[in-house]
């Protein structure tokens, strides 16, 4: 398997009045070419900061990558100059965001915004770039694409804006597409359309995707492998079927049990079942976490969990987990 991205011990911190926020604190994972990797976690777990770090979009006034390495096709990204980084961003690695309205320029037409990216990265004339923009709109299945080229973002619906974002992101055939909550702001029937489109284009173009979401349903339906993050740490990583069938980390297990589901038949029969809660809340990241970040909320917590950070172990091939009490957790499930 050849990896397009290799991330090792990435740490991105923010320096605020309240202290240092360790948003990402030692995260490692690989992205194989053409695969879809999910990063799942709750607000503040560091999933978006990981994505922004890969693209070097952390604002230097507030934070920076303090350590670790990000290798793209063998090239180290953390030490590239801004100029070199600009030639990669939007070209070989591109990104789509949750709210397309805030990432599209309201005073430029759709066609201009797609063509702009193409001209920046490819040796094409403006009219050739506009032709390519037209092709891209057809590719993302925007009807009446010729007319849409001349429209402005406010004239489009939320679903169409997200299609335009995808068209811009894919216009230079990137190797990696990072999608940060791409369907969270959309209605469920439109979400189904957009996710379907992304997977179809991935097959067609061979782009590897990092799908960042809090929604385990989206993870289950779109990804092949999943990284679970909690409080700036990676706590578990596994192939998607394995993760849903045999999650090993108490946090992952808790998440899977806490979601109400549309497919469970049990609760239809009788009384409303109580959802399993994860007690407590996510820890503040302004204080350094000694030990396991999940320890204060964990039912399996032992003295060691509060004192020492658990290392990532690989109890099954391809399935890694960071938990001191893994054996007890697995026994409890059996």
């Amino acid at each position: 398997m050849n990896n397009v991205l290799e991330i090792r011990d990435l740490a991105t911190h923010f320096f605020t009045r309240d202290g240092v926020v360790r948003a990402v604190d030692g995260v490692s994972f690989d992205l194989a070419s053409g695969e879809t990797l999910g990063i799942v976690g709750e607000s503040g777990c560091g999933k978006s900061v990981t994505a922004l770090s890969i693209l070097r979009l952390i604002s230097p006034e507030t934070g920076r990558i303090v350590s670790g390495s990000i290798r793209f096709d063998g090239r180290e990204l953390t030490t590239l100059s801004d100029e070199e980084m600009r030639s990669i961003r939007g070209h070989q690695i591109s990104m789509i965001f949750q709210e397309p309205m805030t990432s599209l320029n309201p005073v430029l037409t759709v066609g201009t915004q797609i063509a702009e990216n193409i001209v920046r990265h490819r040796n094409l004339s403006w009219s050739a770039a506009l032709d390519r923009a037209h092709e891209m709109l057809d590719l993302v299945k925007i009807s009446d694409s010729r007319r849409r080229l001349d429209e402005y973002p406010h004239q489009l619906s939320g679903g169409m804006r997200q299609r335009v974002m995808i068209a811009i992101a894919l216009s230079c055939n990137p190797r990696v597409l990072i999608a940060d909550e791409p369907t969270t702001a959309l209605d469920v029937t439109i979400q189904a359309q957009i996710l379907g489109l992304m997977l179809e284009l991935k097959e067609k173009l061979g782009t590897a995707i990092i799908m960042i979401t809090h929604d385990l349903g989206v993870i289950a339906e779109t990804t092949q492998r999943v990284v679970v993050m909690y409080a700036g740490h990676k706590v578990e990583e596994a192939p998607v079927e394995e993760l849903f069938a045999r999650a090993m980390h108490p946090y992952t297990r808790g998440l899977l049990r806490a979601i109400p589901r549309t497919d469970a038949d049990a609760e239809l029969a009788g009384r409303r079942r109580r959802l399993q809660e994860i007690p407590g809340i996510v820890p503040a990241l302004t204080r350094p976490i000694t030990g396991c970040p999940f320890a204060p909320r964990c039912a399996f917590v032992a003295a060691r969990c509060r004192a020492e950070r658990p290392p990532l172990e690989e109890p099954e091939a391809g399935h890694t987990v960071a938990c001191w009490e893994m054996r007890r957790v697995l026994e409890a499930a059996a």
Partner: protein
Amino acid sequence: MSERFSLEVTDLVKHFSVGGGLLRRPRMVRAVDGVSFAIGRGETLGLVGESGCGKSTVSRVVLKLLEPTSGRILLGGVDVTPFRPGAMWPHRRRIQIVFQDPYSSLNPRLSAGAIVGEPLENFGIAAGKEKDERVARLFERVGLHAEDTRKYPHEFSGGQRQRLGIAKALSVNPDVIVADEPVSALDVSVRAQVLNLLIDLQDEYRLSYLFISHDLAVMRHVSHRIAVMYLGRIVEFTDKRTLFSQPLHPYTEALLSAAPVPDPAKKKSRRVVLQGEVPSALQPPSGCHFHPRCPYALPACRSTDPPLIEVAPGHHVACLRRPPGGDPAPLTPSQ
């Protein structure tokens, strides 16, 4: 008319006029276009639909935060529709709301204790020491600490703020709570805590919930009966079990099939992906509002507006292809 129902709504209509000017006639948005339902004590009625379907407008109208264009609203058997704000006041206590984003609905300059205690004073229920004691009890009941009363909203996490919002709604002993997307802004692990709290409180106080959400999984968890809305109208209305096991309206079927299932083994086996988007409520399609997106539409659907009828006991559907007593088997696409 009976008091079996805490909240009863008949033919509720709310139109907004938009645009318009000196020479231009304003256009009508039929945000809610003839909606009827009743909620019994201790019951949760779920109102589900996508953005713009009118579900939030329904919630504002039943609270009389918006005046209905026509229709009737009965609160505990009392017709409150004609009441002006003054006359409405004694009845306001009976129906309270919990909002989606508790942060924007809590006054940042008031302490948490003052926020929750305010309705008690406003309605003359308790004051002074008695009020403080009731507030402390409410805090504990919703899973906050009594000493948290001195904190301000920004010192709480999202889930705790939603607990505050619930404590505030609960403080005046309402019969009905309108919960408008109460867990949509919360993280998964906290969402479960808040849903469990809402269910426990309902069982304890026999509260009626009008529960509004776009999330079918949440809906399935908390509701007893569910109404599916599309462009201002209820298109299907039945008990939760029937809705999920035997949806009859094509829109319900599409909604259920579009919801991502958190189980990779069940990956999109038979997905109905709807084409197109929800049309503008300014110019709703003729006939059945859903016909341009409906895979089963007949020519008649373009011109005939299907009424919501009871096709099987307790199962109401507005679809020409679902006549009373008809075969509930899945439809076959037209063409």
